[in-house]
């Protein structure tokens, strides 16, 4: 690696990124992204689609920088609502609710938000450096993944979803299975057959993630809290400081490092690695911790790791887009759309033909992260004060924002009705002591696993042994089995003891 060459490239990048206009676009994107991200339901894709025409007017670099800013901003905004009011705006913030919301209930929303911001910033910086140094080799690494490898990786992800549950393992299994089944509702893309739709055309494309998450997390929580306000009321006496303590910082260092590494690696997989980032990091922390049973009650590690992981993954998911022209997710697809509007054909030559664009984007990623921290740290004070509003009023606001957020996604009132259904369902789950996080994770992973399973079987001409023959796939499956054993065996032992005592 010629350092001189790298420095020259970064220099070029800085020159592009630091122009006043581009910095302005970066800021605009970050601000808009944060505002949008905080609104539950309205995600980066919708925002970028709305603002894409605006970018016609900007030069190519400015347009892409702004779109990227919106993306990070929305990522971070989603974490804010997850911590404050248990509303995961995006799939990547589901896991943040587990400990983040508990911390908020204990009056520690400030430290949670701050560590989330700092962890994200660190992860963003590291990921930016990784992209600058190692985009091509990382791409080659990602290319090693074949369909059976993806399937096994997602199986491992499902096991993570079970392991991260705080309560009964059996119930976690149940939630994962149910979530997967819910994910299958809709049209089977391969055949066009409808599954479990009961003729309701709104279900033809499946249940939306946002109505499900809003209902099961947000609305259910509101129902539970309305007649039990002391659960949610935040007396100012409980509000202990906005900044993380020394202790918090010390405990967060390792999780942030681990989360960044894990998220950064998962993000480069175009087939959907980024989704796994946050909850893999969470599970990893739980395994490394000396007090795993405390996870889910407000452990700072449970916020630091997933937040770093998902920001690292968000950044590294640019890699396949920048080096190969392959979008890892809908957001990257929008970025490609933005590029094409400006006549840039994404693909392997972008790096050579438009180095200013390539390196300018990378450097502005770093600036974007910087701006987000500068924007968000002061806002923490405001957010936390919002929690002091009496719950009887706060609930009204939360419910309204849920409804309008979901409505705005597709201008569909039917999706708002779905929140009502899922809200009641979520409340039922709460009453029966089921946890919603594994449900949502199963919901996300189930359909993807089916796609990869079918693709593997098609390519292997019907031979299932290929899952064990590919080394990566075998690795992941073994890990999954081991992890599962660790989690299930103690329970089996306990059950036998209990049965003996009967």
């Amino acid at each position, binding site marked *: 690696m010629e350092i001189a060459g790298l420095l020259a490239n970064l220099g070029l990048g800085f020159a592009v990124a630091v122009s006043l206009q581009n910095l302005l676009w970066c800021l605009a994107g970050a601000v808009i992204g944060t505002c949008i991200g905080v609104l539950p339901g309205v995600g980066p894709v919708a925002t970028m689609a709305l603002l894409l025409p605006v970018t016609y007017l900007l030069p190519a670099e400015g347009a892409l920088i702004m779109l990227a800013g919106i993306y990070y901003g929305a990522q971070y905004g989603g974490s804010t609502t997850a911590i404050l009011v248990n509303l995961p705006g995006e799939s990547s913030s589901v896991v943040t609710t587990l400990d983040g919301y508990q911390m908020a209930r204990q009056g520690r929303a400030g430290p949670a938000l701050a560590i989330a911001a700092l962890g994200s910033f660190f992860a963003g910086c590291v990921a930016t450096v990784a992209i600058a140094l190692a985009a091509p080799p990382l791409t080659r690494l990602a290319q090693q993944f074949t369909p059976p490898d993806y399937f096994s990786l997602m199986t491992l992800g499902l096991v993570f979803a079970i392991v991260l549950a705080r309560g009964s393992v059996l119930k976690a299994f149940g939630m994962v299975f149910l979530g*997967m089944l819910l994910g299958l509702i809709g049209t089977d893309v391969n055949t066009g*057959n409808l599954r*479990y739709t009961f003729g309701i055309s709104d279900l033809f494309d499946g249940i939306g993630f946002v109505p499900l998450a809003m209902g099961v997390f947000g609305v259910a929580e509101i129902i539970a809290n309305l007649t039990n306000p002391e659960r949610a009321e935040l007396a100012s006496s409980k509000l202990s400081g906005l900044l993380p303590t020394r202790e918090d910082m010390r405990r967060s260092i390792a999780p942030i490092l681990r989360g960044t590494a894990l998220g950064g690696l998962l993000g480069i997989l175009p087939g959907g690695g980024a989704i796994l980032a946050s909850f893999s990091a969470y599970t990893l922390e739980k395994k490394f911790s000396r007090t795993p049973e405390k996870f889910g009650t407000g452990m700072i590690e449970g916020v630091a790791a997933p937040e770093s992981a998902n920001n690292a993954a968000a950044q590294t998911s640019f890699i396949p887009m920048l080096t190969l022209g392959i979008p890892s997710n809908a957001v990257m697809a929008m970025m490609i759309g933005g590029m094409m509007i400006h006549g840039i054909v994404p693909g392997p030559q972008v790096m050579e033909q438009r180095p200013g664009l390539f390196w300018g984007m990378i450097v502005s990623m770093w600036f974007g992260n910087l701006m987000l921290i500068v924007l968000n740290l002061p806002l923490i004070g405001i957010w936390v004060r919002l929690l002091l509003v009496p719950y009887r009023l706060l609930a*009204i606001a939360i*419910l309204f924002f849920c409804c309008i957020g979901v409505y705005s996604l597709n201008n569909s009132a039917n999706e708002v009705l779905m929140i009502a259904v899922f809200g*009641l369902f979520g409340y039922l789950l709460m009453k029966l002591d089921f946890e919603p996080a594994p449900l949502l994770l199963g919901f996300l992973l189930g359909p993807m696993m089916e796609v990869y399973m079918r693709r593997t079987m098609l390519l292997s001409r019907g031979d299932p042994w290929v899952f064990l023959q590919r080394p990566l796939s075998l690795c992941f499956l073994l890990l999954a089995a081991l992890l599962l054993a660790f989690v299930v065996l103690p329970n089996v032992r306990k059950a036998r003891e209990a049965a003996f005592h009967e």
Partner: protein
Amino acid sequence: MRMRSSQDIAAGLLLLAFGLAGLWIGADYPMGTAQRPGTGVLPHILSWCLVATGVLIWLKAALAGSPPLSAWAWRPAIMVTLATVAFALLVDRLGLVVSMIVSMTFTALGTPDTRWREYLMFALLMLGLGVGLFIYGLGMPIPALPTGYPWK
């Protein structure tokens, strides 16, 4: 075997119900071949898993007992549901302002400690925020006031 109205008995039954429903509704989904697994493969597997898990939970509860179900929050559940449904049904037809008022009021009715004067001020604030932010700020194509219904 002690069969009380306990939490996990219900939990197990819920999963069992979902699993059986999945099997019954999905009974006709084609299974395809080994090389081309069909529409029904994963639903069948998952439904069976749900049945198994449900039975296990139920057994565990029946043998070892589990905490009883705590009281249900009927009033909030009904009110919040009504609030959401009201919003959904009214927003297209009567505009944002009306649907907000109706739905916010339902939510407020969902808790016994609502103070009505306080609510009134808060509701006005929310209305301003809602209309200002979503319609003027973000330019969403939602009518603010009831438009042309039914008196156009």
